[in-house]
C-alpha cells in the first residue's frame, strides 16, 4: 500500500470522525439543557432521576456505555443487531454521555446568575420562557464558554472510542492500516489530524468568546 492510498483511507475515517463530532454536539447540547432543567426542577422525582442519570453517565467509561447501547438491544430484548446499527449506537452513546456533562456545565452557569436578573425580568413582566431564553441563557452561554471549549476538545479525542464498535472512524482505520502494513505512519497521521482538529476548535471557540466580549 502506498502513501496515497493510505491517506485516502484515513481521509474516509476522518470524515466519519467529524460526523460523530458534529452529530454529538447537535444532539447533546439541547439534550443537556433538558437534563439540566430536570436536575434543577422543583419536582423531587425529576430532580433525582436527572441526578442519577448524570452520576451514572459520568461515573462509568464511555467505552462501556457504547457497548451497552450497541449490545443492549440484543441481550435485553433479543433484537437482532443490524451491522449499520453500530454507527447509530455510537451517536446515541456519545449524545447520552456528553449531554450529562453539558447538563452540569449549564447548571453551573445558570446557578452563577445573580437573582437580580430574574427579579428585574419579573418586574418588567417577562414570562418564565422569555426570562430564560432571552435574559438568562445568553448570559449563561458567555459564562460557560471556557468549560464548553474544554468539553468539546475532549470530544474530538473521544471520537476515537468509536473503534470499540468497529465504526470506521479515523483511529479505527489508522489501527487497521498500522497492523496490516506494519508502519507507524497512520498513527502519526492520526495524531496530526486530532491535533489540527483541536487547534481549529480552540481557535473557533476563542473567536466566539471574543465576539461575546461586547459586554461584561
Amino acid at each position, binding site marked *: 500500500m502506498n502513501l496515497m492510498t493510505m491517506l485516502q483511507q484515513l481521509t474516509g475515517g476522518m470524515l466519519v470522525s467529524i460526523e460523530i463530532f458534529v452529530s454529538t454536539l447537535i444532539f447533546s447540547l439541547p439534550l443537556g439543557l433538558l437534563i439540566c432543567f430536570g436536575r434543577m426542577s422543583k419536582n423531587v422525582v425529576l430532580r433525582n432521576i436527572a441526578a442519577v442519570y448524570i452520576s451514572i453517565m459520568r461515573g462509568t467509561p464511555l467505552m462501556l456505555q457504547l457497548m451497552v447501547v450497541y449490545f443492549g438491544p440484543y441481550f435485553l430484548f433479543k433484537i437482532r443487531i443490524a451491522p449499520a446499527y453500530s454507527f447509530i449506537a455510537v451517536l446515541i452513546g456519545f449524545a447520552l454521555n456528553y449531554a450529562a456533562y453539558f447538563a452540569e456545565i449549564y447548571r453551573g452557569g445558570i446557578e452563577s446568575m445573580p437573582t437580580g*436578573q430574574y427579579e*428585574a425580568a419579573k418586574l418588567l413582566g*417577562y414570562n418564565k420562557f422569555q426570562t430564560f431564553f432571552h435574559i438568562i441563557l445568553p448570559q449563561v452561554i458567555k459564562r460557560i464558554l471556557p468549560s464548553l471549549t474544554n468539553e468539546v476538545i475532549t470530544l474530538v479525542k473521544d471520537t476515537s472510542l468509536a473503534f470499540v464498535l468497529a465504526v470506521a472512524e479515523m483511529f479505527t482505520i489508522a489501527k487497521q492500516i498500522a497492523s496490516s502494513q506494519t508502519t507507524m505512519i497512520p498513527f502519526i497521521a492520526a495524531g496530526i489530524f486530532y491535533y489540527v482538529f483541536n487547534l481549529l476548535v480552540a481557535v473557533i471557540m476563542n473567536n466566539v468568546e471574543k465576539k461575546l466580549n461586547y459586554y461584561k
Partner: protein
Amino acid sequence: MKLLEMKHIKKQFENLEVLKDISLTVEQGEVLAIIGPSGSGKSTLLRCATMLETIDDGELLYLGEKAAFSENGHAVYVKNTELKRMQGNYGLVFQNFNLFPHFSVMKNIIDAPLRVQKREKEEVLKHAQELLKKMGLEEKENAYPYQLSGGQQQRVSIARALAMKPKILFFDEPTSALDPELTGEILKVIKNLAAEHMTMVIVTHEMNFARNVADHIIFMDQGVIAQQGTPDELFNSNNPRMREFLGKFDS
C-alpha cells in the same frame, strides 16, 4: 385614588418576624419615603409591596383591586394571571440596578415595552428617546451597561422602569450602591419625577433627601412603623427611637 394599600402585613423568615402588622396607603401623586435602621424590615416591606416576596398575612391592593387577602390568619393571593396584570401597575428601581448586561442601553429600555406590552415600535422608540433625554443620557443609547458609571446605570434603570408607564415607581435604596458624588444625580432625577407628580415609594438612607422630596415619611423600627407623618412632623418628633436614629445622621 389609592394606588397601593397594604393592610396588617405580616412576614416571617424562619422564626424571625420581619414585618409585624404593617399598614400603609399610597395615594396617586404621593411620594412616600420609608426610612429606618438596617434590619428594620423596610426592604422586606418593599419586596412584599412589589411581590418579590409573598406576605404571610394581611391584605395587598393595587388601585383598589385585591392582590392578596387574609383568610384564617393566612394571606391568600389571587390567580397568577391576575397578579401578572396588576404587576403592570408598578415598576421597581433596584439598589444595584440589575440592568441586562447583554443589552445596549436602548434595548434595556425598549425590550420589555415591545416584547411584554407589545406596543408599537415607533411609539416605544420615541418614548425611550424622551426618557433618555430626561435622564441626560442621549449620547449613551448604544452603550452597554458596563461602559457606564454607577449613576448612569441607575438612570438607565429608572428609564427602563418608566418606559413601562407604571402608575407607581418603587425605589429600593437607589443610591446605596453609588459613590457619594454620584448620589446627587439620582436624587435630582427622583426630585424631577416628584415635580411631575409621579407616585413613588422610596426606601432610602438619605435623610435630607427624604425630608425634601417626600410628602409622607414612614419610620420603621424592628418590623413596625414606629412613627409616620409629614417630614416636618417626623423630624421634629419627640419619639426617642426616632431622635436616636436622626442623631446618628446629625453627628
